[in-house]
């Protein structure tokens, strides 16, 4: 077989032609890299209103009046940080929520130290998260608040909503794994082969760098080569460089994961797939998904290689709520929050959905439409389940698909 002839002469000629341009580019690149770059992330102002151990509750400052009566608490994963939702000024889910008049709180899990290695999922869900929810309920004198979870934080929210349904008015899950018995994502394949017990016993907390290396290895061609080739190609473009550095800052700003939490998440979820079967237990209590009776909005990414649609889409079929909706966006795991297209779709959709379900809490119809009395910290217990504000049938939305993503964005 003849060797294919690569037109080296043409390629070299083309390169020679580009030499002058390249020279100019290099000059521009050095100018950009040596200039003052704006690479700050998470710049939207907030107040820390509650703290417990390493965990902080952020309350973002609204510029005007809140348009929704019920505040929204966003729960991020323990992997990476919640700053991703406020990565850059023109692509900020936080800013979009505030613009839509949502009174926004966010859990900042902080940086676990060795002291936190024995913290379990129960400590996070029935401890820190529950305390944050109680704080907001007390502050706003409300029996229930809106809850939104992201990735592993979404799994925590699902567990929380099942165990504390009386405190959650509406539940939003985004790229949230609940069904782990799938081979469509590499993470699901690898986690099954991982000896979590041995790793946790060895490391205590799972080092962030180890996790990040694992994430990079999910697609080394893109994440370790092509991404930086792209950077070099665009290094003369200041806004591109600034946004690229912002993303790099976020990706590698990773807290360690508390050891016992990791152990339980891998063993109970990835290996035994207990959550979707309503067999998982936290603090001795079974997480029964049928107890999730509040409206549920479930987002996932069609090209998500970390949490594939197969890991997310079953949730709405297993909960007790009749008001559920799946939204399958044609983007990746992070693209949902940072892509320009999603910026126009994602936050506004949530704001609309919440607005439609923002009526004050009422007693069941038979007892008259009276507002439920609420004594902060106590009254929400054992009050029974309020009737859903709107009881539409389950629906599955595919209409919000965007055009296929050209390239996976980082993770």
């Amino acid at each position, binding site marked *: 077989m003849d060797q294919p002839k*690569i037109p080296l002469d043409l390629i070299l000629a*083309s390169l020679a032609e580009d030499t002058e341009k390249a020279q100019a580019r290099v000059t521009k690149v050095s100018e950009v890299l040596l200039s003052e770059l704006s690479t700050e992330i998470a710049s939207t102002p907030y107040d820390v209103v509650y703290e417990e151990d390493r965990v902080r509750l952020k309350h973002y400052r609204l510029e005007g009046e809140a348009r929704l009566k019920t505040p929204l608490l966003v729960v991020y994963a323990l992997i990476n940080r919640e700053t991703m939702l406020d990565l850059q000024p023109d692509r900020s889910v936080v800013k979009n929520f505030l613009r839509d008049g949502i009174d926004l709180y966010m859990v900042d899990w902080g940086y676990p130290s*060795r002291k936190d290695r024995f913290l379990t999922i129960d400590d996070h869900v029935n401890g820190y998260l529950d305390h944050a929810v109680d704080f907001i309920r007390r502050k706003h004198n409300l029996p229930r608040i809106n809850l939104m979870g992201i990735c592993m934080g979404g799994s925590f929210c699902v567990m929380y909503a099942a165990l504390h349904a009386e405190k959650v008015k509406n539940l939003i899950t985004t790229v949230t794994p609940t069904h782990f018995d799938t081979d469509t994502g590499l993470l699901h394949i690898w986690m099954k082969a991982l000896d979590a017990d*041995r790793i946790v016993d060895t490391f205590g907390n799972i080092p962030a760098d180890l996790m990040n290396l694992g994430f990079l290895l999910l697609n080394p061609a893109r994440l370790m080569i092509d991404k930086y080739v792209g950077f070099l190609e665009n290094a003369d473009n200041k806004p591109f460089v600034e946004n690229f550095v912002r993303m790099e800052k976020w990706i590698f700003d990773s807290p360690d994961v508390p050891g016992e939490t990791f152990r339980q998440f891998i063993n109970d979820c990835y290996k035994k797939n207990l959550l979707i079967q309503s067999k998982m237990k936290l603090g001795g209590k079974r997480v029964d998904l049928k107890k999730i009776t509040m409206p549920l909005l479930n987002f996932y990414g069609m090209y998500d290689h970390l949490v594939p649609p197969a890991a997310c889409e079953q949730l709405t079929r297993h909960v007790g709520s009749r008001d559920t909706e799946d939204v399958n966006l044609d983007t990746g795991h992070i693209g949902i929050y940072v892509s320009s297209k999603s910026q126009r779709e994602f936050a506004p959709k949530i704001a609309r959905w919440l607005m439609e379900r923002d009526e004050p809490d009422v007693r069941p119809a038979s007892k008259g439409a009276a507002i439920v009395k609420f004594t902060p910290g106590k009254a929400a217990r054992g009050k029974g389940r309020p009737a859903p504000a709107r009881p539409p049938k389950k629906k599955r939305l595919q209409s919000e698909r965007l055009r296929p993503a050209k390239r996976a964005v980082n993770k």
Partner: protein
Amino acid sequence: MDETQQGQAPDGLFPPDWIKAGADLWTSLLKMVPPPTGTAAGPSTQKPPRNRSLESMETALKMWQSLSTTMSDPAAASAASKSLDALPDLFLKVAEASWDTCFQIQKVNIEKAGKIGRKVEAYHFENLDQEFFKTLKDIYEKEIRQFFYIPQLGLTRFYQERMNLLFDKLALLKATSAEFFSLLNLPFEQTAKVMQQEVEKLAQQGKVPKQAKEYYNLWVKILEGHFMTLFKSPEYNQALGEMFNQLSEFIIAKNEVVQDILQLLPVPTHKEVDALYRDLHQLKKRVRELERQLNTD
């Protein structure tokens, strides 16, 4: 030594005059040893303290004196002489045994080296790329590793054992990582081959790329595909799992050695701190539960 000589120095190593002069020398030296300082001050009921160095010297001189006296006895001198005569034989035997041991070890090593060759053959080295690291690891495990597990003796045996374990785990980690990283290299090799085929196909269609960037895009796309195929393979998953296991084993062994070192320093060890954290965690949970019960009441 002939009879005449034996007569002059009967059954002895040294002439009798030498022996007598030696015994006299030690006796006179002993007399020169100064008395304890306390005796000069007059009689005392309490025994005065003695200079330890003088005591030692006195003991040594007495020993030499008794040795010289003994050697003046013909029977004793003869016995000593015979013992000394036997020394060369003794040294020869020790040397012989040592060399035998050395040759034995060398023989075993040569045998092991021979096995290395045989193993490579057995693993079909025509598949060198895939099997090379596995073979090296196998050789290490079967032929070298046991040296780290030779039983240690004495007071420091446990410390030495932990140190040897660390060396063993480090060697295994290196072998496993080499195997793992060689797997990660496979997509690059495969991509280079597929690239040739792809370019050939494009050439046949008359669509040969003219820009370097187009080649890069094609290469990175093929590379991505190969990585995906590799990552889904059971071999990769096994290697990944093994890599994590060996890393864990190494870190555990390293921590044990560090623990030994930390015990020498005035700082708490990880084990102690972890025990404290565990207690703290359980206490906090109990307090929270009690608080909850109080609020409910």
